[in-house]
């Protein structure tokens, strides 16, 4: 009879190199699912938020209800949000994406609207004086000037989505959250710690990437400071 292995897995230690090497495929799958959930949610949220913010800016009366709705959505706790979507989506990845879209949407609409409102009236008038129509004004003057505020919102939305996606474990689609959930039920310390650290790493890397994108697409903010 062979003796049971006496490695860090058997001793259930928090930090375990053995875990990383033996469960690499599980970890990579979870990271992949986590990235997909987050990326889809934030991109769909962005695609919906830009027109909503532009409309709320154009028609002043729409801004109040839109902002009130986003406050209500943001106040609903994530677990309740996913649960409320259960009858519509069932136990699916679409449920988690839909819930995360609603949170991203909220953060993005508020920030993009704040950015559009911060465009100076003189700038708008100057563009109109140069013969810009409303569409050209929006696309080449207002939206670019709202970019820094919009990117700040995008960074917050992305980092929040990475962190909230873990709650998707309740329906079995939580990316790294699934590993945390199953690790909790089996008191598997190495799995919980590894998945948690990876989750924070994804958030930090995504934040830095978006910061880099912002640096690249808003060269005029650097020129002004120099």
């Amino acid at each position, binding site marked *: 009879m062979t003796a049971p292995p006496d490695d860090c897995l058997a001793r259930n230690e928090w930090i375990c190199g053995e875990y990383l090497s033996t469960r690499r495929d599980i970890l990579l799958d979870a990271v992949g699912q986590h990235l997909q959930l987050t990326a889809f949610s934030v991109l769909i949220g962005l695609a919906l938020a830009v027109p909503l913010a532009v409309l709320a800016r154009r028609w002043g009366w729409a801004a109040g209800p839109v902002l009130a709705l986003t*406050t*209500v959505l943001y*106040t*609903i*706790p*994530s*677990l*309740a*949000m996913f*649960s*409320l979507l*259960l*009858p*519509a989506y069932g136990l699916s990845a679409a449920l988690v994406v839909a819930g995360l879209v609603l949170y991203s949407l909220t953060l993005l609409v508020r920030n993009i609207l704040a950015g559009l409102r911060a465009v100076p009236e003189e700038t708008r008038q100057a563009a109109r004086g140069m013969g810009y129509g409303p569409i050209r004004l929006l696309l080449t003057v207002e939206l670019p000037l709202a970019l820094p505020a919009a990117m700040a919102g995008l960074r*917050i939305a992305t*980092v*929040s989505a*990475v*962190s*909230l996606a*873990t*709650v998707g*474990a*309740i*329906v079995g689609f939580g990316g790294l*959250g699934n590993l*945390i*959930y199953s*690790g*909790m039920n089996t*008191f598997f*310390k190495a799995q*919980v*710690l590894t*998945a*948690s650290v990876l*989750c*924070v790493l994804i*958030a*930090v890397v995504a*934040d830095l990437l978006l910061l880099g994108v912002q640096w690249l697409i808003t060269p005029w903010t650097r020129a002004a400071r120099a």
Partner: protein
Amino acid sequence: MDPGGPGVNTLADAWDWLTDSANWAGDAGVWHRLTQHLVLTVVCLVISCLIALPVALVLGHLGKGGALAVNISNVGRAIPTFAVLVLLLLTPIGKWGEGPTVVALVLFAVPPLLTNAYVGMREVDRDVVRASRGMGMTGRQMLWQVEVPLAMPMILNGVRIAAVQLVATATIAALAGGGGLGRIITAGFNLASTPQVVAGAVLVAVFALLVEAVFEVAERLAPKRGAR
């Protein structure tokens, strides 16, 4: 066939669940879970305020530690609540019943309190602060009679954000075995009972919106300084 579609049917079933008095009584009933949720939120809000506000007020008064006070809330956002709850559950703290929940709730409520109170203190008009110094006020008098009253709207905004955060975190705590309204949802998932899941979610959402509304009303009713 169901003419209203599955969505309407589930909502009707959720309503039946909510109006069944059997679901409101007992240790797993709504009243008990609601009390747990309320007590957890209030107790942790008080603990968090006792920890965060003195630190923020002193740092704000001295004008030190700004980078820390502001960055700590960005760091807080990147750390998943669920992960912290489970990590705490697996440490020795996990043996004290609601221990992990209380520690996690406080950890996530402190950053918004700290950041808002600090920013509020620093946004007090420097001329007003210098004038109070010129009038011969001591540091303590400046803090309590000038800076804190002027920073109060921002401090209360932080308390409001923290309270909403606490309600949300207390809900997720149910996933890691904590008490509160979230348990109705997790129990619903375990029973594969969609009506119970939806009913629990409605209760949680209403509770969170009520907390938000209470602060909204309090802000409207608060006496406006400088209105005289």
